[in-house]
């Protein structure tokens, strides 16, 4: 008994020392994670509350709190407006002592947060936003772009479609940073593979009525109508294209960015046969299935999208770097994260490049027919795996000033 008590005291003292050492470099004694996401609008299902849940799971699974660190998670709604998002980011950094911002689905907002994070020397882990500019001309020593980007989507989905004969394209593009980047990157792939772009039309973010845009797309007689949009915009345009009989008329839709939750919203009868590129699917292996099960319990039964998985993975790696450095200084932690190989249950082993690009494989998947699906959320069959070294834009093509 005495010995037990003795060792307990020893552990307690060791713990106190560890905690003291840990807290020495941690600002405000708390590692504060800010999840900035769309909590109310067209991207809320694919990120939103699920991203907060994923961040919390990463903190719990890391066990860092048992080792004397205090971790706090706050969240806010950027409403898809750069001014709202940047005001929140500024206030988080200035007065609320937030150390790292994660997620941010919306490239317009993400680019604004990217700049503020750099000015304030904090850390920014992008899971939600897609624009490849975040590791291109806007790359920053304080930002890591985790889950996916527009170049990857363009080369995955766009490349696969051109190869199977879809060589004339018409783009339906969300009119902001993300849509422009996705359209630009896809157009480059189409042209390189010998295809042609017959036209493009841009629609405002969060559009309800796509009729005039779809009619233009129909009139272009392009074989493929490329949807360079996301979330609610994608599901709306696919549903309305079905109402106009566009697919029945012989044209095909290419959803350049489709999330699991979008397929769920569309239903398999509408979504079947869609080809899309993903970096995470919950039904990949035992670990991802176990994660999905726990995640669904926390997020209204929603199964994790790749953005949720990205938040989990990014926060996991971030906390490892914080622990290794015993510091939460943004610039130092990001540098440490880049030099350490990543390893987590969802994305497996990976690396982070100098330009801030997280590298892992991508998967070209096809949406199952209703008969093939065993139930809700059983939606994808993997057609091809794009290896990690080919999934993302080569370092030299990015024009990132950090890469010399």
């Amino acid at each position, binding site marked *: 008994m005495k010995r037990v008590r003795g060792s307990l005291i020893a552990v307690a003292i060791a713990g106190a020392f560890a905690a003291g050492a840990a807290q020495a470099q941690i600002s405000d004694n708390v590692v504060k994670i800010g999840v900035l996401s769309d909590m*109310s609008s067209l991207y809320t299902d694919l990120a939103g509350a699920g991203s907060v849940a994923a961040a919390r799971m990463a903190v719990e699974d890391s066990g860092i709190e048992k080792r004397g660190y205090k971790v706090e998670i706050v969240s*806010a*709604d950027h409403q898809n407006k*750069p001014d709202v998002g*940047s005001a929140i980011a500024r*206030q988080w950094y200035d*007065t609320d002592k937030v150390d790292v911002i994660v997620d941010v689905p919306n490239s317009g907002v993400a680019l*604004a947060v990217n*700049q503020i994070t750099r000015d304030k020397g904090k850390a920014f882990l992008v899971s939600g936003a897609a624009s490849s500019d975040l590791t291109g001309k806007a790359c920053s020593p304080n930002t890591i772009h985790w889950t996916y980007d527009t170049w990857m989507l363009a080369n995955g989905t766009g490349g696969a479609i051109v190869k199977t004969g879809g060589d004339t394209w018409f783009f339906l593009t969300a*009119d902001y940073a993300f849509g422009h980047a996705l359209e630009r990157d896809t157009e480059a792939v189409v042209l390189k593979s010998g295809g042609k772009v017959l036209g493009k039309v841009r629609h405002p973010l969060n559009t309800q009525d796509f009729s005039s845009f779809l009619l233009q797309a129909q009139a272009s007689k392009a074989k493929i109508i490329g949807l360079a949009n996301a979330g609610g915009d994608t599901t709306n345009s696919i549903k309305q294209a079905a109402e106009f009989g566009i697919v029945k008329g012989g044209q095909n839709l290419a959803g350049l960015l489709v999330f699991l939750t979008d397929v769920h919203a569309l239903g398999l009868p509408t979504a079947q046969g869609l080809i899309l590129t993903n970096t995470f699917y919950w039904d990949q292996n035992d670990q991802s299935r176990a994660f999905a099960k726990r995640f669904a319990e926390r997020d209204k039964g929603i199964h994790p999208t790749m953005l949720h998985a990205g938040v989990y993975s990014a926060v996991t790696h971030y906390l490892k770097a914080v622990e290794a450095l015993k510091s939460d200084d943004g610039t130092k932690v990001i540098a440490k994260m880049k030099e350490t190989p990543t390893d987590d249950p969802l994305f497996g082993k990976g690396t982070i490049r100098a330009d801030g690009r997280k590298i892992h494989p991508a998967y070209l998947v096809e949406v199952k027919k209703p008969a093939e699906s065993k139930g809700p959320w059983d939606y994808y069959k993997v057609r091809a795996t794009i290896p990690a070294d080919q999934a993302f834009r080569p370092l030299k093509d990015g024009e990132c000033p950090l890469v010399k």
Partner: protein
Amino acid sequence: MAISDTAAIATRASNTARAGIVLMLAALAIAPFVGLYPVFLMKALCFALFACAFNLLLGFGGLLSFGHAMFLGTAGYVSAHAAKVWGLPFELAVLSGTAAAAALGTLVGALAIRRQGIYFAMITLAIAQMMFFFYLQTPFTHGEDGIQSVPRGRLFGVFDLSSTLTMYYVVLIIFALAFLLIYRVIHSPFGQVLKAIRENEPRAISLGYDADRYKLLAFILSATLAGLAGATKSIVFQLASLTDVHWTMSGEVVLMTLLGGMGTIFGPVVGAFIIIGIESYLSDFGEWVTVITGVIFVVCVLAFRRGIVGELSAWWSKHAG
């Protein structure tokens, strides 16, 4: 006797107002040191200036413009573009934005003041919507992203504005100068005539005043000052976005003015601080903020129609007078 009484009351009122201005500016000058977040204060000051400019037109000219966001937004875009792409220093960027708003104000004003009441409001709303779609489509505004990473630069090449406190005092000085200008205008003969037109336009005309000229001048002045607010705001926040030209912004400034007290000097400032405060400090409620501000608006219209400052000064003059 009646005349000297009125004069005495007027002097006392203007003394109270002057004391109020000094107090308000002093409070604002020390506000960052009592724990208020300077970035929030800057935002509130920009909107306070915007609401004061709007109040000049609505409260003293009796003209309800429902498109004032176009002046705020135009100036914001022009000064952000001037600072980022043309590389102009802070003061020139703000001036060019303000000048753009003044020019737009002249055009819109000349068209809109030909009609009154609801028709005036509808014309301004229609033009503001046209401007919104113009800014949505033209490339230099970068659509939904807005003009981002606008450099703050240096004031007169000396004061580094990237320091939040320096920026705050520059914004405070801009606000104070504009506020004093508005105060001066309201109490000038021009302001008196404007009020006369508001009360009874045919009578003012029959007295020989060219009502249209006065209304146009008031409109241009209001547009210019709204532009000054927008130009300052875009440099402070290093961002000019579609939010500032959206019609909801035109509605928000109406709300600020009515809540604080239309036709009072301090009303718009109080209204702006309350609305911006609600938006900033209750932002955790997400979309509910819109509902909360809506409820406040309804309560304000039902219970205290003169607005906060209007009701307070009515109470004051009843008890003190």
